[in-house]
């Protein structure tokens, strides 16, 4: 397999989970709620999904080699992510807390809670001291003919099934945001909540729902990373992809398709850097430098493109009915 193929295959495997997390962020932020909690939400979602998958295998809930735990674990991860997002929703919408602080606190809380619960559950339920839940690696698929096309064929080679799921979710959530009444209300809440309220739609309900959606999508994204990069759930899930998703959605101007492009850019940049280090036969300790590439790229791109960026006008604004 050529290096270019590997760059594309690994790049997509990173870019698509990043995208689904970023779409979650877009839903929250277009409704006017800053969501720095994506990192914590993806971690908690992955924890819930991984706990379910690990338990179902260890405790023989399904027949061996059944794929059902794998599919269901994504659903559980989505539920777990939105459950944790309830905290952010309550703090930001109901209690009118500072949204930045709420997000940061949720991230810290998520690391602590999942770390603690993982070791405790391992000891008390599964009877062995461990700080992770081991998972199977998600199966990879290759489409016979399409994969033979030069270069582009890599897109159809050794991809994870969840990448297809993410593309389907992309279409669904694009439709919801731009073509449904709920989507129109959501985007109005992030631009001028007073206008939405005057039109007889409850701002709080729209924003709370948006935050729950962001939790669910971040949870799914976290589960993807648990299956692909880690093959387990452990504290290593918190490697900053939630923040990278935020960078992608800002770079994508809070719009879904440009954010998709930003995620592809970040994914390919990282897999490209990994390949570069292999080709140059650099020491593995230097390999960690490759991790820097997407972040350095973010800094540079944001410095140059920020002036074209337009955040939702009411982003971070605590909505007060009586204010006019």
């Amino acid at each position: 397999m050529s290096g270019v193929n590997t760059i594309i295959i690994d790049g997509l495997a990173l870019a698509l989970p990043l995208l689904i997390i970023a779409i979650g962020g877009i839903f929250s932020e277009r409704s006017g709620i800053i969501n720095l909690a994506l990192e914590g939400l993806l971690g908690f979602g992955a924890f819930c999904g991984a706990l379910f998958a690990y338990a179902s295998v260890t405790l023989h809930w399904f027949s061996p080699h059944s794929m059902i735990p794998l599919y269901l674990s994504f659903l559980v991860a989505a539920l777990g992510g939105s459950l944790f997002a309830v905290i952010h929703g309550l703090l930001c919408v109901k209690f009118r807390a500072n949204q930045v602080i709420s997000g940061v606190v949720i991230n810290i809380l998520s690391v602590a809670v999942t770390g603690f619960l993982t070791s405790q559950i391992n000891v008390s339920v599964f009877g062995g001291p461990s700080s992770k839940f081991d998972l199977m690696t998600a199966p990879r698929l290759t489409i016979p003919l399409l994969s033979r096309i030069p270069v582009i064929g890599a897109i159809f080679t050794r991809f994870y099934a969840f990448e297809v799921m993410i593309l389907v979710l992309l279409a669904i959530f694009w439709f919801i945001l731009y073509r449904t009444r709920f989507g129109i209300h959501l985007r109005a809440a992030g631009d001028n909540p007073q206008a939405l309220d005057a039109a007889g739609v409850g701002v709080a309900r729209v924003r709370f729902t948006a935050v729950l959606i962001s939790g669910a999508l971040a949870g799914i994204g976290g589960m993807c990373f648990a299956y692909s990069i880690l093959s387990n759930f452990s504290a290593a899930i918190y490697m900053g992809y939630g923040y990278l998703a935020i960078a992608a959605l800002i770079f994508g101007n809070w719009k879904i398709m440009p954010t998709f492009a930003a995620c592809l850019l970040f994914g390919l940049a990282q897999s490209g850097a990994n390949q570069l280090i292999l080709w140059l036969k650099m020491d593995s300790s230097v390999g960690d430098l490759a991790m820097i590439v997407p972040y350095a790229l973010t800094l540079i791109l944001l410095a140059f493109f920020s002036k074209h960026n337009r955040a939702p006008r009411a982003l971070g604004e605590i909505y007060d009915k009586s204010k006019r």
Partner: protein
Amino acid sequence: MPDTDVIVEMRHITKRFPGIVANDDISLQIRQGEIFAFAGENGAGKSTLMSILFGMYQPDEGEILIRGRQVDISSPNEAVALGISMVHQHFKLVHNYTVAENIVLGIEPATRLLGLIPYVNMRPVNKVIRELSERYGLEVDPSAVIEDLPVSTQQRVEILKMLYREAEILIFDEPTAMLTPQEITYLLDIIRKLRDDGKTIILITHKLEEIKQVADRCAILNHGKLIATMDVATSSTRDMASKMVGREVIFEIDKELARPGEVVLDVQGLTIENEHHVDVTQDVSFKIHAGEIFAIAGVAGSGQVELADAIAGLSAVKTGKILLEDCDITHTLVRPRTLKGISYIPEDRQDVGLILDFLLEDNLASKAYFRAPFSRRSILQRNAFDSYADDLIRRYDIRCSSGALTMTRSMSGGNQQKAIVAREVEQDAQLMIFVQPTRGLDIGAILSIRRRMIEERDKGRAILLVSLELDEIMAVADTIGVMFAGRMIKIAPADQMTLDEVGEYMMGVKQS
């Protein structure tokens, strides 16, 4: 006129806010298909009354009848259900949405994709909007995005929003405040068309000329009371102006004749533009002498606040000159102006005048903290702040719960204003600028600030007062300058003008 024509009836409406009666026992009837105007100065209670009709406030006493039936309007949604809609002064539009999307917001038409999945279909909406805009001469492109549209077009979108919701009673709150003269003419035409089509129009304004042009009847409010309901056709603007300004009891303040000295402030041909590059004052010139109170009268938005800001150095000057004791300060920064001798009591005391989350003592020293005794070798001397603040609190009678260490936000508006006055007076500045210094204060605080202005004048200071309250201007001014639409149209000694005359100049009824 038979009772069946009455569409809105208000009976004995009273609304109190802490410290003020915004509407005091107001009863009136508005007829189907007329243009009914509310006139009155700022704070007369006209917006409050209409907010009650639109369900944003509940009256403390009184009842409302719509089409002869008593109703309880507890939210704007209920008002809309009764066919009442309102165009607010600040438009409620989503900026990155199209005209059509804004019009249907909240009642979007949904079609089912494949007979199953509901999605928003704007096509029928665009057709309805086009029909409505043709019918009333409201030219808009349904697919244009709001943020690309000028204010006058955004206003048309707000009107279309009401029409799309089939409103019968349309309330306009100061609709011409942000429009150019041509746009005003256009809007008034639309309002007439709406009336001719059977809609009932309620117009809130303080511009009498507009009332004269379009309204059928007019209610005049003053200090929360309904002064008169008049037929516009048979009343003169002059008559309406005198009723609007009212003949309130002017608080007695002992004041000796001014003994003006040298010129302190000399403003020459000042033109100021706002952030949209529109001239807000045009070629304004005047002089203030030592020992003189020069008061600028004018309706809100005549350019007087921008003028005061420019003299204080808060905004830039386009053309013209400002001389302070013969020294050109037109382009000087704020601190050199302060040190040279300008003190400034701004209109917005909470945003510009104070840092609310600082201690009272920090606010009292906020124009002198950088020099001795407050600062030595760049280190703040807290005990100097303490003793200075204690002294001012005593001398200016500032009421505060924990003395110098009171959090400024916790103080009442009147005492916050006293703190600003104390700080500014203590600067010993040659020129003192007071902008709306008594707005929203109780009678005791009002009198104390007015007396302070006269005391400072008697010490030989030049005082510039900007006020929307004619009473205040008549009570303290030695010289009155009247501004209308950005121009200083009249300057005369206070004892040579009557309150009515000043009112007429302010309304643009009388030109010199």
